């Protein structure tokens, strides 16, 4: 695999970078959906993030990269099977798994190991992409072009956190908790509302229009293509700083306080916008907390809430045919009404 473009060398696109960092700190956020024009560095950012994440501890030999101290139900099956190897762990890179278009269902959920079945006549389970993505990221480029039956599958697994395989005489369940990262261009097909709802954050990226930024993009890409290793080396200190920031934020996250006043604000905001269900408030609160952790703050304040309001809520608004304004504008309007004055 070719070396990825460094995360910190991506010009602009602050909202997307912030959302990805929040997801890296707080996986419970439920995924990031990136909408945008062609050629705005959507895929680049996700692959760059993969290279940035600190390695994680996992049980040796576990096909699902289970954490040694994880005692949730879904994991026990895999841990029991491992028996003695239970305590042995090693560091593995956080998986960032691509779900390519044209993938077949058997490779996504896992299926009978064809090789063993054909050669030895034995029945063995071969884990699929969902298994590999456990504890990491599952990236779907052009998610709006994904086949419907795969979308159904993703919706189900993303909600339950486990993958249940009932096919070809196999009956297996294994943990599949991952951060779903989708990218897509709304011009090329709408996204099913059910799937959209699974994404905690949704960000919109656009091609930079500022001449200086545009020139930087082309220059950096030219330098990167010319000598990838040197370019990455050059940006390593900045990337390392981001990595340290993620590690520190993860450590700080459990201790970040969310005052009642902020929760109230979040509820008021959701009420004003009429978002469906409680997921909006929950996401808003989690995102604000993760952002506070990233910023090194001990307490969540209004400022954090304001910065995550658009990505947390803009895809949860009901479409109102009588309101021409885009969802971003509507969120911003509600925010300024609530916080302003």
């Amino acid at each position, binding site marked *: 695999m070719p070396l990825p473009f460094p995360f910190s060398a991506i010009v602009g696109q602050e909202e997307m970078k912030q959302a990805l960092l929040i997801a890296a700190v707080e996986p419970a956020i439920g995924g990031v959906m990136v909408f945008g024009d062609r050629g705005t560095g959507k895929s680049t950012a996700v692959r760059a993030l993969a290279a940035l994440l600190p390695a994680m501890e996992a049980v040796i030999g576990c096909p699902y990269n289970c954490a040694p101290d994880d005692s949730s139900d879904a994991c026990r099956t895999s841990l029991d099977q491992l028996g003695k190897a239970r305590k042995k762990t090693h560091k593995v890179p956080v998986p960032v798994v691509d779900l390519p278009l044209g993938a077949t269902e058997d490779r*996504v959920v896992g299926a009978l190991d064809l090789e063993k079945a054909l050669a030895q006549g034995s029945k063995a389970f071969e884990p699929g992409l969902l298994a590999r993505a456990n504890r990491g990221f599952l990236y779907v480029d052009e998610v709006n072009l994904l086949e419907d039956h795969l979308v159904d599958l993703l919706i189900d697994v993303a909600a339950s956190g486990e993958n249940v395989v009932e096919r070809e005489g196999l009956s297996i369940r294994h943990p599949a908790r991952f951060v779903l990262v989708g990218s897509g261009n709304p011009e090329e097909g709408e996204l099913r509302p059910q799937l959209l709802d699974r994404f905690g954050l949704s960000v919109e990226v656009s091609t930079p229009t500022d001449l200086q930024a545009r020139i930087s993009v082309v220059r950096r890409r030219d330098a990167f293509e010319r000598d990838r290793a040197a370019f990455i080396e050059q940006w390593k200190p900045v990337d390392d700083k981001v990595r340290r920031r993620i590690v520190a934020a993860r450590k700080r996250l459990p201790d970040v306080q969310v005052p009642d006043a902020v929760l109230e604000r979040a509820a008021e905001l959701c009420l004003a916008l009429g978002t469906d269900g409680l997921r909006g408030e929950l996401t808003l609160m989690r995102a604000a907390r993760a952002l506070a952790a990233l910023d090194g703050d001990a307490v969540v304040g209004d400022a954090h809430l304001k910065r995550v309001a658009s990505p947390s809520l803009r895809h949860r608004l009901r479409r109102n045919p009588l309101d021409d304004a885009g969802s971003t504008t509507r969120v911003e309007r509600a925010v300024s009404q609530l916080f302003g004055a």
Partner: protein
Amino acid sequence: MRADAADQARARDAVSAAALLAVDPQTLGGAAIRALAGPVRDQWLALVRGWLPADRPWRRMPLNIADGRLLGGLDLSATLAAGRPIAERGLLAEADGGVLLLAMAERLSAGTVARLSAVLDDGELRLARDGIAATVPARLAVIALDEGIEADEGLAAPLLDRLAFRLELDGLRRLDPEAGGFDAASIAAARARLAQVELPDAVITALTATAGMLGIASLRAVWLATRAARAAAALDGRDRVSEVDGTMAARLVLAPRATRLPSAEPPPESAEPPPPSEQDDSPPADPPPPPPENGPDSDEDAPPIDLDPMLQEVLLAAATAAIPPGLLAQLKAGAQAGKARASGKSGALQKAAARGRPSGSRRGEPRAGQRLALIDTLRAAAPWQRLRRQERLMRGMAATASAPKVLVRREDFHVARLEQRRETTTVFIVDASGSSALNRLAEAKGAIELLLADCYVRRDRVAVIGFRGTTAELLLPPTRSLVRAKRSLAGLPGGGGTPLATALDAAIELADAIRRRGETPGLVLLTDGRANIGRDGKPGRMQAEADASAAAKRLAASGHATLFVDTSPRPQPGAARLAGEMRAVYLPLPFADARALSTAVKAVSPSGRKQG
């Protein structure tokens, strides 16, 4: 003659593009050739092929290629023979290092376009199919043969964006391969030199600024232009990109992408947001991002626009001069160029569930045109092989050489489930004449907005034809965008005669066009049915009604599903008769509101459901 000079320039550009592509095919992505099959197109392709090294693969992709062939998968015969899974290379992997030719590229489906785009971006193919997971190299160039004729047929935008060159070859008689003085040897030399060619900042800056002034939003265009400039320098035997190379890149890469003409006095920072042509369907974009966080080499970004305005002017002039004449006319007319050909459409008509994209399989025997899902059948059979073999032995059948390698039984059979999404376009034909009470117009607008409001669930599109006075006018081409629909409906005036026949003709034409694109049209006619303007535009009730009746019969013959909503306060027998003639569902709606109308339309319109 001027036309001749323009044609000559076009032919020269085509030859230059072929040479540049041959120098650096993978980085430049490829070319989109808009031309019908013909000697010039063949000549151009032969030129590129001749200039590439002989060992580079050159593959042609048929239009309706299956995923198994395109991406690769399990090679069934080899797998069965060997008794272990053997992967089959797909066309994309086979074309690694060479060129993939797309036939009839204007009809590629969105799914195929996305697969190709991913490969062009990554230079490798991620495969997860049929029990095989692999990443295989696929660094290739794509030459898309776009045979679209109408303005709305064309290569899909995501693919078009990734290909450096766009050439129109129609109307040229022949190319002169000697024009640029290139030959295979000089191109091979350029390829060897390419890695050491330097790209000065001034050229990057000038190309970026030029793209901004031509209203090119995509940064990939600028990137491809810089690559083309490098190839041009290498071709010229230089180690540094100069003004000449930049000029050529601006002509070949930027000019065909222009969406507006540069303003008369371009201020250096006029890279204002592009026209919202591409963002109609999306909510307004965010305000521009804050300036980039400076990295370790922030000095690289430090000088503001340091380019000499001369260079920029030269590039801009070159690009402007090379904007194709058709595009130029469009730009001058203020039309949004490129919008019309924004999407490639697969032209297949909806048939039974015997075609479409595979969506899993289910147990069952193949009959009535269903396809056997071979892999799944084998999968189902695989675990039982050992048992079945033992059974055979026990029943006294010796394991001779003639025994089949794989024992497949009836209960293993799986059939493929196919599905094809069918888009529905509802065409509203709205009577805006004086006789049709103007208040009905508001209802029609309301109904359309309500339909659009939930069309993201239904994946439907809406078009509107308005008729009044002597003409029928397409007010809203098929769209899914609420904003656009509202904008065009707001401008619909009322008053004048009722040219019903003309309106029906326009509706049939539009519905036929929609059907040709593989979508299903549904017509909703809102009128009181009192025609008083004939086809020739002359008033006269008798002739007008005869014409309307003839047009209605034509509509019936065309077989489009139609809903006739009689909007007159007292429903007329004449309208009912007319509805009968067009075999429409007749719905008198004297007191309806927008919501009732929307419900009626939903009930009647052919809903684009999937077929399982």
